[in-house]
């Protein structure tokens, strides 16, 4: 079973992501900000990271950069799931090493398609 780390400061948003992914058979672990996400990712082997951008303590882009510095996360897919939709932010995401950018509110079916695609 693939393990997905969902990072978001909104507990309900994490629940929503977990709800969709678990109903499709994935195991989901959660973190409430980038710093906790980094801790979880280093403590557990994760197949995919889905993170929000605007969070206290550590934002999503910093989390992406921090994970990409770790040997185990050089090629693990990382998706940004955020209300931010500007091209400039997406360019920053790409430069940081993110695999993709999804704009909230997400369509659960689309999220599952993207997850399946990047985990292939």
């Amino acid at each position, binding site marked *: 079973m693939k393990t997905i780390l969902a990072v978001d400061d*909104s507990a*309900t*948003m994490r629940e*929503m992501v977990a709800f969709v992914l678990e*109903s499709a058979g994935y195991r989901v672990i959660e973190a409430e900000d980038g710093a906790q996400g980094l801790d979880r990712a280093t403590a557990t082997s994760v197949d995919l990271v889905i993170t929000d951008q605007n969070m206290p303590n550590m934002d999503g882009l910093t989390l992406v950069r921090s994970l990409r510095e770790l040997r185990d996360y050089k090629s693990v897919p990382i998706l940004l799931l955020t*209300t*931010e939709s500007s091209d400039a932010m*997406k360019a920053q995401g*790409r430069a940081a090493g993110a695999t993709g950018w999804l704009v909230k509110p997400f369509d659960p*079916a689309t999220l599952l398609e993207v997850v399946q695609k990047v985990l292939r």
Partner: protein
Amino acid sequence: MSEEHGARDAAQAADLLVTVATSLNERLALTAGELARSQTMLREASGELMTAFRGAADRIVAAQRSVPSGTPDRRSEYGVVLDHLYRAVEHLQSHDLVNQLIDAQKTRVDKMREQLEQALALASTPVAEPQRPDQWIERSRQMLDCIVAGIRQIDEDARAPVHKDKKHAGSVDLF
């Protein structure tokens, strides 16, 4: 007008500003409380809905797995129910945006209250020479600056809440 009368009038004007600042501050405290209450209610309602959705989804997934092979209709019916739950989840995400907007309003109200409290702090310091009107006028001017700065917070983009971008909502970019 004698300096004594001038000082008395100026002191009364300063008192008027204290009344205004106190009254505004009390009303804003009520607003802050209502915003916090709304946020809590929203969080609780969203949490309860998600718990119910997850419970329903678990049952559907379990039921889907227990459908004997050769009955694809039943399996697809469960899929339709799950799709309805997914649709509900998509719309429930609005709570996140509303939460951000409430956060921005709370920050704005807090900043307004900070300025009003500064004005009230000025009023609580004794005037060095109360018989001099210019000292009362200077105090009133400082208090008024704080009150105006507080009111100006209404126009400040407190923490730039992210607005729902209908054009890009749900969009996907894979790099």
